C-alpha cells in the first residue's frame, strides 16, 4: 500500500505515488534550474510539463492504471532527457553565448549567509574581502560611538537582498553561464537538503506550532547574535592584548638591561637569567591568550583555525615555558636561602633636642651619576628627590626604632644590615654592599629615605634597621613623614587635635619613647 498524492500539471489531474512525486519534483526542479538562465524559461518549462502530462496520460491509458508510479516517471523523464543530456546537446548553444555576457558585480545582501540582514556578507562579496573581516570592521565601528549601527541600518535599507539565483550570482560576480548556474543550484539544493535532514523544518500544518517555532527561532537567533557579539569583543580585546604583549616583549628584550625598568620583581633576576625568564613569561601569557582568541573565533565564525596537532604543540610549548619559568625561578629563589646580618655603630653628637627629618635629597651612586651625566662641574652627588616613591627597586625603606641609651653621654645610631644569598658568604657580601646614609647637622638628624645597593648587586632581601639610642630625657621633634619608618610607635598618637604642625614632640623615658605632652603631665616626679 502506497500513499498517493494528487498533482495538477497545467490543468490535468494525476494521482501519483509519493515516491514517484519526489522523483518528478526533483526532475522538474532540475529542469527549471537548467532553463532559468533563458528569458524563455517559462515557455520552455511549460512545454516540457505539458509534454510530460501528455505522456503520463498516454501511459496510464495504455496500461489501464490510475496512479503514476516511480517506474513511469523514470521512463518518461528518460524519454524527455535529463539536464545532463540537454547540457551535452547545447553545450555550445548560443544560449550560452547570449547569456555568458559578464554581468557586473552587484551589491546585494546575502541572505543565505547572514547574522542580521546579510549586509556584511554582501559587502564582503562585493569587495572580495573575507566576510569575517567586514564583520569585525563593523563591530569595531559600532564601538566608535555607534557609527557602524547607523551605517548598517542605511545599508540594510539600500541594499536589495539577493533573492533569485541570478542575483546571487551577480552578487558574487560569477559569470552567469550554465556551469556556474548548475554549481550555484547544487549548492543551494545541498543546503536545503541539509536543513531538511537536520529536522529543523517539519511540515506540521499546525499554525500555532509554527508560530511558536518561529518565535523560538527568533529568540535563538537573537541569543546567537548576542553570543557572537560577546565573542567579537573577546576577539577584539584578545587581539589587542596579544599585540600589546608582543610589542611589550620586543620592547623588554630591547631594554632589559636598562636601569629604568629595574623595579621589584625584575630587580631580583640575575642578568644571565633575564632572557630565558622573559621568554618563558611571554610564552606563559601569550599561549592562553591565543587559545582564548582561537576559541572565540571558533564560536563566532565556526572556523577552526588550528588543528589538533597545533593545539598540542601550543600546550607543549606552554608547558616548556612553565618548566623554564619554574627552573629559573627556583634558581633565583635558591639565592635567598641563607641569611646574614651585621651591625655598625655610629656616634651622634649630643644635643638638647634632636630634630629627626627625612632627607629630601637622594644620594646617587657613582653609577647613577655617570648614567645621568651628573659628574660635570661642581655637582656634589646629591640631587633633590623628584621621583615616585613607589618606584624603588624592591629595596625596602629603612626601619627606625628609638630607644633609651644606657650610656648617658653618648647617643648613637646602630645600623643593622641584613641580606640573603645562596651561601652565608654571599649573603654577607650582599649585606655589606648595602649603603645607607644619614647626616647630622647640629641638632638635625637627616635620614635618607632609601638604602642603596652598591656594586650592582641584585635584590636579595636587603634590609636596614636603624636603632637610635638616646639618653633619658632627651627631647625629640619628629617629622610626620617619618611615621611610616617608625614601627614601635605611631606618631599620630602624639598629635594634638586640630594641630597644623607637621611634626610631633617626644621625650625619652625609662619606659622608652613618650609623647612630650603626656610626659609633662605624668613624668614630673623624678
Amino acid at each position, binding site marked *: 500500500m502506497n500513499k498517493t498524492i494528487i498533482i495538477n*500539471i*497545467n*490543468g*490535468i489531474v494525476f494521482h501519483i505515488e509519493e515516491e514517484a512525486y519526489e522523483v518528478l519534483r526533483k526532475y522538474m526542479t532540475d*529542469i527549471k534550474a537548467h*532553463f532559468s538562465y*533563458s528569458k*524563455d524559461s517559462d*515557455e*520552455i518549462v511549460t*512545454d*516540457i510539463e*505539458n*509534454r510530460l*502530462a*501528455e505522456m503520463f*496520460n*498516454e501511459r496510464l*491509458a495504455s496500461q489501464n492504471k490510475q496512479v503514476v508510479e516511480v517506474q513511469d516517471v523514470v521512463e518518461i523523464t*528518460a*524519454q*524527455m*532527457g*535529463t539536464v545532463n*543530456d*540537454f547540457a551535452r*546537446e*547545447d*553545450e*555550445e*548553444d548560443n*544560449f550560452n553565448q547570449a547569456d555568458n555576457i559578464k554581468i557586473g558585480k552587484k551589491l546585494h545582501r546575502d541572505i543565505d549567509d547572514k547574522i542580521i540582514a546579510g549586509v556584511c556578507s554582501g559587502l564582503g562579496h562585493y569587495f572580495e574581502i573575507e566576510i569575517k573581516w567586514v564583520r569585525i570592521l563593523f563591530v569595531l565601528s559600532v564601538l566608535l560611538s555607534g557609527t557602524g549601527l547607523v551605517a548598517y541600518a542605511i545599508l540594510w535599507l539600500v541594499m536589495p537582498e539577493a533573492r533569485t539565483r541570478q542575483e546571487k550570482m551577480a552578487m558574487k560576480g560569477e559569470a552567469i553561464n550554465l556551469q556556474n548556474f548548475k554549481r550555484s543550484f547544487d549548492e543551494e539544493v545541498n543546503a536545503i537538503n541539509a536543513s531538511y535532514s537536520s529536522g529543523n523544518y517539519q511540515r506540521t500544518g499546525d499554525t500555532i506550532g509554527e508560530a511558536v517555532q518561529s518565535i523560538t527561532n527568533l529568540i535563538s537567533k537573537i541569543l546567537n547574535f548576542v553570543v557572537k557579539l560577546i565573542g567579537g569583543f573577546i576577539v577584539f580585546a584578545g587581539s589587542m592584548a596579544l599585540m600589546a604583549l608582543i610589542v611589550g616583549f620586543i620592547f623588554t628584550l630591547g631594554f632589559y638591561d636598562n636601569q629604568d625598568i629595574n623595579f621589584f620583581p625584575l630587580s631580583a633576576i640575575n642578568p644571565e637569567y633575564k632572557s630565558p625568564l622573559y621568554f618563558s613569561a611571554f610564552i606563559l601569557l601569550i599561549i592562553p591568550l591565543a587559545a582564548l582568541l582561537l576559541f572565540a573565533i571558533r564560536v563566532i565564525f565556526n572556523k577552526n583555525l588550528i588543528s589538533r596537532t597545533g593545539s598540542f604543540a601550543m600546550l607543549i610549548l606552554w608547558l616548556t615555558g612553565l618548566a623554564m619559568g619554574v627552573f629559573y625561578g627556583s634558581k633565583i629563589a635558591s639565592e635567598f636561602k641563607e641569611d646574614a646580618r651585621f651591625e655598625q655603630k655610629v656616634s651622634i653628637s649630643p644635643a638638647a633636642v634632636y630634630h629627626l627629618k627625612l632627607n629630601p635629597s637622594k644620594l646617587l651612586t657613582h653609577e647613577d651619576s655617570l648614567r645621568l651625566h651628573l659628574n660635570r662641574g661642581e655637582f656634589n652627588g646629591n640631587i633633590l628627590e623628584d621621583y615616585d616613591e613607589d618606584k624603588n627597586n624592591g629595596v625596602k625603606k629603612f626601619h627606625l626604632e628609638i630607644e633609651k641609651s644606657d650610656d648617658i653621654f653618648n647617643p648613637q645610631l646602630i645600623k643593622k644590615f641584613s641580606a640573603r644569598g645562596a651561601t652565608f658568604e654571599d649573603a654577607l657580601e650582599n649585606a655589606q654592599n648595602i649603603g645607607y646614609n644619614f647626616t647630622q647637622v647640629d641638632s638635625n638628624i637627616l635620614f635618607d629615605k632609601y638604602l642603596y645597593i652598591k656594586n650592582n648587586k641584585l635584590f636579595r632581601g636587603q634590609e636596614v634597621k636603624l636603632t637610635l639610642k638616646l639618653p633619658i630625657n632627651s627631647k625629640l621633634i619628629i617629622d610626620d613623614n617619618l611615621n611610616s619608618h617608625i614601627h614601635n610607635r605611631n606618631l599620630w598618637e602624639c598629635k594634638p587635635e586640630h594641630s597644623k604642625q607637621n611634626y610631633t614632640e617626644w621625650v625619652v623615658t625609662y619606659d622608652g619613647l613618650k609623647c612630650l605632652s603626656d610626659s609633662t603631665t605624668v613624668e614630673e616626679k623624678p
Partner: protein
Amino acid sequence: MLVENTQTQMRKGILEYCILSIISKGEIYASDIINELKKAQLLVVEGTLYPLLTRLKNNGLLSYNWIESTSGPPRKYYTLTQSGIDVLTKLDKTWNELLFAVNTSIDGRKIS
C-alpha cells in the same frame, strides 16, 4: 574536447536546418518532430527540442497554433512563417554548397 566541439557545431547547424525542413512539410506537433528526428538519428531526447523551438519561434521563423488534444492539454502545432520559409530557402542553398564543398574535399579519401 576539440573533436566534441566540432561535432557539436556541425550537429547544431544541421539540427536547426532539419527541424525547419521537417516543419516545412506541414503543421506538426513537437513530439512528431521528435519522431522524425529520431528516424533521422539526430536527436536523443525530447527535452532538447523545446528550447530550440522556442528560440526559432522567438526569432520569427516559426509560429504555432493551439490545437485541442484528446489525450491531455492542448498541443502546440508548429508551422513555418514567411521568414522561416525564406531562411529555409537560404539554408537549402547553403546546404548544397556545403554538400559540394564537403564532397569535393573528402573525394578520394577512404571513409570507413
